[in-house]
């Protein structure tokens, strides 16, 4: 097995008449509006390529309508892609037969949905065991496994409830449990927490982080919420109108937005929480004192702030014994003050 969990190449999904003609044709280069006006087709996903490493949390972010749901559904062909290639665990998904596709969905990939998609006529335990049931696991075994999962997702004691007796957050725990129960190698999330209240959303995000630490699964996580993306993502893919705008780590996205669209997105982010020293340091010039404390470049600005401000000498950013740059009070304050102005103008 390679180190790549998912590989997507030139993936297209076009809705509408004669959709298959669009990818690769001159029409494919048109913007979404132009294409719709000209052909009546909507290019929901447009020539998208990316790779997800094993064990990584890969976040896809974009405004509503940007094609995120379509993209994630194309991965397991819940929506049939129009063109391109999807490789999961070295299997070419688009070439799979109906039955091997079903095997893939039963054993390797599980998905969590925005509105949970639970079966109201089944108890929590049978909802969680559903994936095992369709796989043909016997009743006793699957209930044993489902009970473990109940504990894992924090639903101990709710096994015999019906979904609509639970709160939204708990229902989504069931959804999460159902996905984890089949022990998949890849977890897909389509805006799983968008329907939840902010406080519960934060709990659930922490829950995902915890689970990721515990089970170390590869995750592809869809969201329209940048905070969530920054919090969870090892890397973030930003989409607009079906196209990839930028792929990068959180600090890359915030520190070096690829264009105005991304800049708008990240303008409200408290940068000091995301940016690392790598993004604020500058090369040392002649007059600088080089005997201050040392920090690695991956330190988040907010964490470094105290040390920098307390020290009367610049901080040295050092990696593997090599001096990369220095950070002074001024560099730190620039990030924090910029944030304040953003917040003020936001409040005005």
């Amino acid at each position, binding site marked *: 097995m390679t180190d790549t969990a998912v590989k997507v190449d030139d993936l297209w999904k076009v809705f509408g008449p004669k959709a298959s003609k669009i990818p690769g044709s001159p029409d494919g280069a048109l913007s979404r509006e132009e294409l719709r006006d000209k052909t009546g087709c909507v290019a929901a996903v447009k020539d998208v390529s990316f790779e997800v490493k094993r064990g990584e949390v890969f976040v896809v972010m974009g405004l509503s309508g940007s094609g995120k749901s379509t993209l994630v559904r194309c991965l397991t062909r819940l929506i049939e892609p129009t063109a391109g290639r999807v490789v999961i665990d070295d299997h070419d998904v688009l070439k799979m037969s109906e039955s091997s596709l079903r095997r893939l*969905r*039963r054993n390797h990939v599980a998905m969590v*949905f925005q509105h949970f*998609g639970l079966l109201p006529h089944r108890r929590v335990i049978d909802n969680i065991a*559903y*994936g095992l049931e369709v796989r043909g696991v016997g009743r006793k075994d699957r209930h044993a496994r489902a009970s473990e999962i109940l504990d894992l997702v924090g639903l101990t004691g709710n096994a015999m409830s*019906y979904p609509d007796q639970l709160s939204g957050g708990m229902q989504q725990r069931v*959804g999460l449990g159902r996905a984890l129960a089949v022990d998949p190698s890849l977890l*897909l999330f389509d805006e799983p927490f968008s329907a939840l209240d902010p406080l519960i959303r934060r709990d659930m995000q922490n829950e995902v982080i915890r689970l990721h630490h515990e089970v170390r699964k590869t995750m592809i996580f869809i969201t329209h919420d940048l905070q969530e993306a920054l919090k969870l993502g090892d890397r973030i893919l930003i989409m607009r109108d079906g196209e990839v705008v930028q792929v990068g780590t959180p600090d890359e996205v915030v520190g070096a937005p690829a264009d105005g669209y991304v800049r708008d997105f990240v303008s409200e982010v408290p940068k000091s929480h995301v940016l690392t020293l790598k993004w604020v340091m500058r090369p040392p010039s002649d007059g600088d004192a080089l005997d201050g404390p040392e920090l690695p470049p991956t330190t988040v600005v907010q964490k470094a702030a105290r040390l920098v401000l307390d020290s009367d000498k610049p901080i040295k950013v050092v990696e593997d014994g090599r001096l990369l740059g220095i950070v002074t009070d001024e560099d730190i304050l620039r990030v924090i003050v910029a944030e304040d102005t953003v917040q003020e103008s936001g409040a005005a």
Partner: protein
Amino acid sequence: MSVDTTAPAPPGPATKEQQPPPVDDGPDRRWWFVAGVLAILVVLSFPLRGVATLPLARSDLTDFQTWLGELSDKLENARDSSAILRGLDKISTVIENVAVFLQELISQPAFPRPVPEIGWLGVLAVATWIALAVAGWRMAVLTGVSFALFGMLGYWTDSMDTLVVTFMAVAICLVIGIPIGIWMGRSSRATAVITPVLDGLQTLPSFVYLLPITLFFSIGVAAAVIVTLIYALPPVIRITAHGIRSVSTETIEAMQSAGTSRSQMLRKVQLPMARRTIIVGVNQTIMAALSMATIAAFVDGPGLGKPVIKALESLDVGRAATAGLCLVIMAIMLDRVTTAASERSVAIPTDRAKRTRVIVLAVGAVVAVACVILSRRQLNLAEFPDKPDLGTPFAKLADNVSSFFTDNLSGLTNGIKDALTYGLLNPLQTLLAQSPWWLVAATLLALSVLISGIRSLLTSIVCIGVLLGTGLWQDSMVTLTMTLVATILTMVLALVLGVWMAQSRAVDLSIRPILDAAQVVPPFVYLVPAIALFGATRFTAIVAAMVYASPVAIKLVCDAIRGVSPTVVEAAQSAGSNRWQIITKVQLPMARKGIALATNQGMLYVFSMVVIGGLVGAGALGYLVVAGFSQNELYGKGLAAGIAIVALAIMLDRMAQGSSARRKPAGNKSRSKWARISQLVG
């Protein structure tokens, strides 16, 4: 839930439709054109009165009608040579055998016994037990009391016969309908093929199902079961499909992404999630079947319909009312029990409740079996005793009420009757039936284009051509007149009550149960009070039609007004509108589509009743159908009248639909108007 089935047009599935966006483009110019066309008709009708009206005397036959009359004989002769006809014969024989078996079981003497296999006590006990099992003890009590009343009112045998026909038809309906519904729910192609057929079937008045049946089947219990099942099939198909389809896409996707196969999807996801809806569909089917099983008395179907028809024909109000009461009791019982069963089907019992239930049911079963055995042994438990007799006093009471009205309030009833007859009915009838046919036809064509667009022109031309072809133009115009008058009156009533209900919770809470109950009563029954008040006239049919069509129209109007976005109403309030201004400037205009839909539905219900009204002096097409049943030489004319009714129904429906839904652009094909009659279920 509310139920609506006894109609030619049981409601479609319980889609929660989005309220159409508030488009208020002001008074539409086309309505000026409509007024203009009508004015031209009125002006021209005066000089041309009595010209080219295409009358046809009652006993006269056109060639086409004679040909239709012989069709039956021709089919009879072809019977031996045609495999299809022989197949139909076989079906009919099987159905008849089963029906006779069931009748001998509970209603008719089982030779050599002088009584059925199971006497009244046994039947009552078993029925009560079934109600207990599916719907709880309250419904068991209701069922037991209802069965006892059938007997005490003096219609035990007829009631049991009606139940036999109804349940045979329902059983076959479910066996055929649920699989078709499932197929339709899972395949958009099937939907595209089946939906128009169902739309068509549900547009037709129940009455016209009867005659063609007699072409292919000999009259009797088999014909009754078959016509009942055809009539009751659309609701179960539609609602099953709807139930399957209304499982959310996200749930389907969630299940697919867990690797669910197609058959697993059906068994583990779609069917369980649609179960509640399907049970609602069973309720609708039972109610539709009951109403048709009654009317099937015209094809010699056994049961309560026969005494009702006989009493209506001889204007015997007392007997008609008693038999009618049995039907009402039966309708309410069936509706309540199936509704309770559907509610129970989603309830989650505790373990203790489950255990108690098993014990109660076991004990109940023993009692029921004991009752069955007893009722086989003892004659007085087999044949319903003459006493206590509630039937005779009730009939007397009904007679007295009727004569009280005719004796003391005839001034009032006649006043209403005369005012509407001379003020509205007669002038309109003169206009439509006494004007030259080409003038009226041209007007109808112009209206159909103006109201529902150029595409309806072809339908209207064909329908008018068919009306002319049947040779029954003038009769059709008389029926049309009654339909229009009753529809206008119904809509006036519906607007007043509907708006009132929409404004006040309290009013809604007190009126809605009455409307719900009124909707389960077989339409036939409404003729009884109408005839008691107004005697046998055209007006009687109009009153019955109003009573029959009002509940559905009122509910649709009320729900349409309710559906107006509360934000808009709030905005209007905060702009200082008073209540009347809110109703007239905001709610009614914004509910326009819903009101148009109510008119469409109301008109179809009215039409169906006006046709049946032929039985009580309404004359015209309905009378011809009735005459076709009773007089052999008029059979062909009755069939022709049936065809005319179909043409008229389709034309009216198209026009009314056009006014409510100027076809939206493609993309919501599946949302036929039936899908929009959402509020009536659930």
